[in-house]
């Protein structure tokens, strides 16, 4: 009997030492190709960390974040998960993210992060709630061949963008200038153009959409001017059905040559190259600036966090360190098309030349390209985004008054911020 007991203890001990721990990782910006890449990276991690296995869960994109939040709220087994900027506040409010500040103190990779990465990671209460893996910042894609054929230079300002796009527009021949975005998430495009016309946007944290006068920008004179410009871009330079265009339609328009100017994120680069087949057919320029010599860009990003209730916090941190190491992050970013997070990565010629040079310009010229914080973490934001899209579509259809819409948006944010002026 005693022997049996001892053997049982031995087995138990051995299993605990050698038994594999399984980490559960949930991604949300799911795509079949990226899942393949992640799986590869995870296999490499498993090879260098015996005793740890990683299970990757990849919900279909359309409902992935909803799924993740439900899993977290019902305390399903999740150890590492993808944290997107507009969901960070939700995760923290629901107390599902572990504060990584302790781990980060002993990590030298932290100092290699670009400043923007450190800023976003510590956005909430100054605590490190996640480690970003990449940035999505918009720039201007253009068709080199089409511009050359028509003797059109690369626009430096919004006014030039409008004029050149208009010159290229000939509806009778099915040719237009600008790949307008009127469909889902249109605000991340329209607001770039609109806000560049406002002279005094306040880029400080927690002041998203406010001017330095402390009021929402939407119905200031500059905001109205910018909105008018956006409307002009639609009517004079874009195909009629771009009213409802999403990413796919924008990219199709660009690749087919119908709309040679395209505002998009860096993850569009690999896709455009693959579809065009010839890298000489296109180029990327930094975002044109507004009448005041500035343009305001938000810095979309995503990263990896640890579930607050995870039973394997140390092992989860090992995984995150692995994914955030400069080499792995560079590989991931190159595939993903996002901008990498470490300073050392930017020394790589891949990012210093070619299409990525445009973003390098944007990241290193803060007087022209001002990074501001879009208020995605405020509870009213999702409703605002829906309303903004619907209102713009109605303005373009002639069903809503431009000034009325701008006032409603400003009132919305006045209420959100509790401004009584």
């Amino acid at each position, binding site marked *: 009997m005693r022997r049996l007991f001892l053997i049982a203890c031995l087995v138990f001990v051995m299993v605990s030492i050698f038994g594999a721990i399984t980490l559960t990782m949930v991604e949300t910006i799911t795509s079949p190709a990226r899942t393949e890449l992640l799986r590869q990276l995870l296999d490499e991690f498993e090879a260098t960390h015996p005793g740890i296995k990683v299970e990757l869960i990849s919900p279909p994109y*359309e*409902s992935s974040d*909803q799924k993740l*939040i439900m899993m977290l*709220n019902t305390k399903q087994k999740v150890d590492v998960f993808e944290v997107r900027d507009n969901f960070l*506040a*939700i995760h923290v*409010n*629901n107390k599902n993210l572990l504060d990584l500040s302790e781990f980060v103190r002993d990590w030298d990779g932290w100092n290699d992060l670009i400043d923007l990465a450190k800023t976003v990671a510590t956005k909430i209460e100054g605590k490190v709630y996640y480690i970003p893996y990449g940035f999505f910042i918009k720039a201007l894609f253009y068709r080199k061949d089409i511009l050359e054929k028509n003797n059109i230079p690369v626009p430096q300002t919004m006014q030039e963008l409008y004029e050149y796009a208009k010159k290229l527009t000939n509806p009778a021949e099915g040719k237009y200038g600008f790949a307008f975005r*009127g*469909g*889902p998430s249109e605000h991340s495009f329209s607001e770039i153009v609109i806000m560049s016309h406002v002279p005094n946007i306040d880029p400080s944290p927690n002041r998203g959409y406010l001017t330095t006068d402390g009021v929402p920008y939407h119905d200031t004179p500059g905001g109205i001017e910018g909105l008018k410009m956006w409307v002009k871009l639609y009517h004079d330079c874009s*195909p*009629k*059905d*771009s*009213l*409802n*265009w999403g990413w796919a*339609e924008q990219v*199709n328009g660009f690749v087919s040559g*119908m709309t040679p100017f395209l505002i998009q994120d860096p993850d569009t680069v690999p896709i455009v190259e693959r579809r065009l087949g010839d890298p000489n057919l296109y180029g990327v320029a930094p975002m044109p600036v507004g009448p005041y010599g500035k343009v305001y860009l938000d810095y979309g990003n995503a990263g990896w966090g640890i579930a607050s209730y995870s039973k394997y916090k140390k092992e989860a941190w090992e995984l995150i360190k692995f994914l955030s190491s400069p080499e792995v992050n560079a590989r991931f970013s190159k595939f993903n098309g996002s901008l990498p997070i470490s300073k050392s990565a930017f020394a790589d010629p891949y990012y210093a030349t070619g299409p990525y040079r445009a973003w390098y310009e944007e990241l290193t010229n803060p007087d022209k390209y001002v990074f501001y914080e879009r208020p995605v973490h405020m*509870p009213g934001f*999702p*409703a605002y*985004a*829906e309303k903004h*899209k*619907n209102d713009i*579509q*109605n303005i373009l*259809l002639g069903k809503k008054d431009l000034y009325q819409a701008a006032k409603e948006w400003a009132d919305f944010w006045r209420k959100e911020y509790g401004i009584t002026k």
Partner: protein
Amino acid sequence: MSKDRRFIFVMILPTVLFISLVIFLPAIRSIIMAFQDYNMYFLTKKFIGFKNFSDAFNDPVFIQATKNTLIWTLLSLALQFVLGFSLALLLRRPFRGRGVYTALVFYPWAVSGFVIGLQWRWMFHGSAGVINDLLLKLGLIQERIAFLSDPSYALYAAIVANVWYGVPFFAIMLLAALQSVPQELYEAAKIDGANAFKQFMNVTIPYVRPVIINTTLIRFIWIVNFPDIIFSMTNGGPAGSSHILSTLLISKVYNEYNYGVASAIGVIIMLILATYAYVYLKINRSEGGF
């Protein structure tokens, strides 16, 4: 309990258990949610009375969605019925290869709503869509129509897809009903001197009337609760012009993370359907059933 009563009880028990657990229990939970502040930001779950309902009503898209629900349902139903009935009439008399023909022409019913939405989205595509191409080639339009980006067309494009999907259901049910009409009734009518049309009106229609009533009743309810096609085809756009109440429900969850308001909309849908069913049955004095 008598042996027979016990028999009945045992036979019904599994059904009752299943629908209580799988349908009624979650439904009650949802109805409770309609009165709670249940969104993903705060998860407080505190009771807020009818606020979710008033939020739903005050959403400008809500009125449009209600109107659209009526258009969507009535138009789809009418077209599905007319086309389904026509098809059933055409199939009434047997012909060579009818088995194969019906297997092919009825297949739309086997396709999932989500896939139908995507297929038709591709076909209605503003630039690369085949429907635009065909309309142009036939000279019916001068330039391409952006069906899914135009508020006046979006909902109707979805209705086309829905009709394509729903015709087989009616055709099958009505064909069975038509074939059930006893031959003797037709012969009696012929003896009385009725021509084909009179036979149709006085024999066929009255006989299949119960089936028509029941299928339209259940189909109406299914169509109202059928968000799949619109969801994958237009997602309610543009500018919310193609939302129906059930897709608005989904949008509140996926886009605004607000389960409370979504559940409130669900309750509203149920109330509307319950009223409709009551009125419909009163008018037709049928006991429901096939």
